[in-house]
């Protein structure tokens, strides 16, 4: 019961982070990106991510889509981390 409450509270806080983050995200560049730009260093990706910079291609700058992606991946990460924990726990019980 306590775990359930904690999960619900945690996920509500996470969704608030996502919403605030999506509203603020485009404010300016991260330090490392800015420094790299000033020092003329360039990225050379070896992989094309499906959602570059947390945006759905074709819907760049769409706040609702960005918030949707943030919430969806918060849930995915919760599931993955839960799964990793369960797999690790199971592997020792065998």
């Amino acid at each position, binding site marked *: 019961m306590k775990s359930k409450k904690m999960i619900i509270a945690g996920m509500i806080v996470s969704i608030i982070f996502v919403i605030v983050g999506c509203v603020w995200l485009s404010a300016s*560049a991260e330090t490392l990106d800015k420094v790299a730009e000033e020092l003329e260093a360039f990225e050379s*990706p070896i992989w094309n991510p499906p959602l570059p910079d947390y945006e759905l291609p074709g819907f760049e700058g769409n706040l609702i889509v960005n918030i949707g992606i943030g919430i969806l991946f918060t849930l995915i990460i919760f599931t993955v981390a839960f799964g990793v*924990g369960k797999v690790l726990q199971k592997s020792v019980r065998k």
Partner: protein
Amino acid sequence: MHIPDGFLDLKICLITYALTIIFWFFAFRKAKETLTDKQIPLMAVLTAMFFAAQMMNYPIIGGTTAHLLGGPILAITLGPYGGLISMSVILLIQALFFGDGGLTTLGANVWNMGIIGVFIPYIVWILLPKNRNRMVLGAFLGAFIGDVLAAISAGLELGFSTKFLYGISISVPVMAVHHSIMGVGEGIVTSIIILILLKSRPDLLNLPKITPKWLTK
């Protein structure tokens, strides 16, 4: 602080991957022995929460932004190996789906944010005797020092990399100065979360920690 592909040369990528793999090996082995039913939901919730928190970039200096790492809280509640596992999940998904941090530099990013950014706060936390005020102080100091050292580590990797045009005399101070401001933010947030946990769920601070023997009290 996520280093993208192309900023680090092969040598630095390999060294940081090798160091990270050693920590992964021990972290997964220890987690198998210590993970409890209480810790798994906590680990999942905190991992999700700090993925979301990393989307929240706040302005610092010179038109740049920074975000929380989350390592200190992960370390204090789950233990440093637990924090490393959580942070690795976050960093892997960020690199695979969002291009936030590269795949060749994943070892370096996990080393900076998932090992230095997790172990240092935990070490500072356990060094201070445990009463309420010292817990809050330990959370703040640990988070601040952890963030700054993680940034210095990233600066060293960039400075020593032949792909980056400038040496450590430029890369280290720039990373350290900017991220010291982020460290203050991380320290404040970490202290607030510790205060909330002390009031509402002190049991979560007393769960068995997924930690190496040399860091067991």
